[in-house]
């Protein structure tokens, strides 16, 4: 279920597949793709592990490392970059909640209110995914200009004295979280829409018939029924947001003290050539994300993953 939300192109009722046991055919079908992922997904993870323990070559140039078993790489990386890690998770979590609050009513509108208007529903879905069709970097830069000091929005904030003189919107934690939330709203809205589209309104009516207030019907009927979509949407928003370094970059919506873990990994790998630090941080980030994801996987089973 989880990531299937994007592939769900009006599927008919699944037909019970004729399971065949000719495993040679299965092997031929699977082998190329699985080998590909082994070489270009699993092996890279392994080389991250090896790199993360490396030690600098004595009297070597910048970027020269040799195989070693330096556990200290991890302890020093965590000690140094704990603020960045925490900041990444705090930003990503806040952006996820913001995207949920923004996306849920929208998903409800498209999935439930627009049911009677199929053409309008299709148009609304197109509008939700429209941001995907314009470059991710350019739409983030567009927000940078729209939130810059010269923009009418910020002038209005200054004029109304909602923003003290000399204060900016861009370059702050607010603008980074805003950018993350904006960029991942479609990822949140679509899976919730997929859940709500199938919502049987008679359950909601039953809540009212049983003297539940609209609020308690909403939280005790609608939200639990939309839960699979909310969980998928939260994962699809949180995971890329936690590793993102575009929004927090200083050329985009970030500032001097908004660097997220992705920025640190990028700088260490591509600029400072400090590969062991970048590798260790990547693995720490991956483990930190995989823990909540595996809790979810264990609860739902591997078959529903795709």
């Amino acid at each position, binding site marked *: 279920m989880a990531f299937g939300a994007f592939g769900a192109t009006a599927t008919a009722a699944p037909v019970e597949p004729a399971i065949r046991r000719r495993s040679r055919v299965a092997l031929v079908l699977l082998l190329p793709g699985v080998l590909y992922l082994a070489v*270009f997904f699993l092996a890279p993870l392994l080389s991250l592990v090896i790199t993360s323990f490396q030690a600098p070559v004595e009297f070597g140039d910048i970027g020269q490392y040799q195989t070693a078993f330096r556990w200290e790489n991890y302890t020093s990386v965590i000690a140094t970059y704990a603020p960045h890690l925490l900041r990444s998770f705090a930003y990503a979590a806040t952006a996820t909640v913001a995207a949920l609050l923004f996306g849920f009513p929208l998903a409800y509108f498209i999935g439930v209110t627009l049911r009677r208007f199929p053409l309008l529903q299709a*148009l609304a879905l197109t509008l939700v995914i*429209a941001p995907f069709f314009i470059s991710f970097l350019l739409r983030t830069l567009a927000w940078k200009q729209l939130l810059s000091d010269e923009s009418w929005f910020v002038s209005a904030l200054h004029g109304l004295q909602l923003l003290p003189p000399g204060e900016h919107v861009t370059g702050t934690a607010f603008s980074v979280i805003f950018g993350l939330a904006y960029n991942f709203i479609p990822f949140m809205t679509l899976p919730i829409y997929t859940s709500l589209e199938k919502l049987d309104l008679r359950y909601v009516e039953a809540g009212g018939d049983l003297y539940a207030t609209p609020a308690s019907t909403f939280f005790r009927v609608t939200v639990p029924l939309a839960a699979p979509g909310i969980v998928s949407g939260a994962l699809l928003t949180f995971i890329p947001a936690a590793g993102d370094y*575009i929004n927090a970059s200083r050329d985009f919506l970030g500032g001097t003290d908004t660097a997220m873990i992705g920025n640190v990994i990028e700088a260490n790998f591509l600029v400072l050539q400090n590969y062991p630090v970048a590798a260790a941080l990547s693995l720490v980030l991956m483990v930190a994300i995989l823990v909540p994801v595996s809790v979810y996987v264990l609860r739902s089973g591997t078959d529903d993953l795709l």
Partner: protein
Amino acid sequence: MNAFSRWFGRYALWIYSTLAFVFLLVPIAYTIVFSFNDSRRSNIVWRGFTLDNWTQVCNSQGVCEAFANSLVVGVVATVLATALGTMIAIALVRFRFPFRNSTTLLLFLPMATPEVVLGAGLAAEFLTAGVQKGVVTVILAHTMFCISFVVVTVRARVASLDPALEEAGRDLYASPGQVFARITFPLLLPGIVAAALLSFALSFDDFIITNFNSGSFVTFPKYVYTAAARGIPAEANVIASAVFVIAIVFVVSTQLSSAARRKRAAKNQ
């Protein structure tokens, strides 16, 4: 339900959603409007309307090369990922085999791993193996992250395919190859096309993984990232706007034609 909640259900959600759509479209409108800006060096302040950016897109240094590079990478990675992913999707639905759960997990993990980790991992591997970064490493990387999305998309289509149709083909003495070419493949085609489009879109807009594995090879997103520090030329807006318009026209026309087909099917019944 009381009067207020009825009113809320009827109008407030419409108002909210309209505003929400406007909000979602604001940066898109901004990007398109500024593709017509008569800008000189930096495209930040509005200086007047011009079509020059559109008629002379390739004037700005490197924009068109970067765009062409992105197209090449997108096409090759899409073909590779769609082929590999479609095969896996068929195997996952139609066969029971050992390590089936591990295979599913292997396909799920790339989607659950942050892009920085995927990018840094591949870069570390290429570094260890002494592989020169360039167009090939970018294609290899893009193919990798597209495969899982292809599997997800095509799998849904395979699952809805009635095996009786293929059995009928075999009953009529079609060879396995003929069954695939004449029955299975045409029926899967809409799913495969959707998967290919998704792959292309993912590849075309990818920056993070590309940045780690491209060396001096410049794709369109990488061009924008590098230019962001000194100011984006309006020509970049032109290319992004053109891509946006083509994609939207494509999506809307597919939706309209499938709506028309459904209507006709309903009439015939």
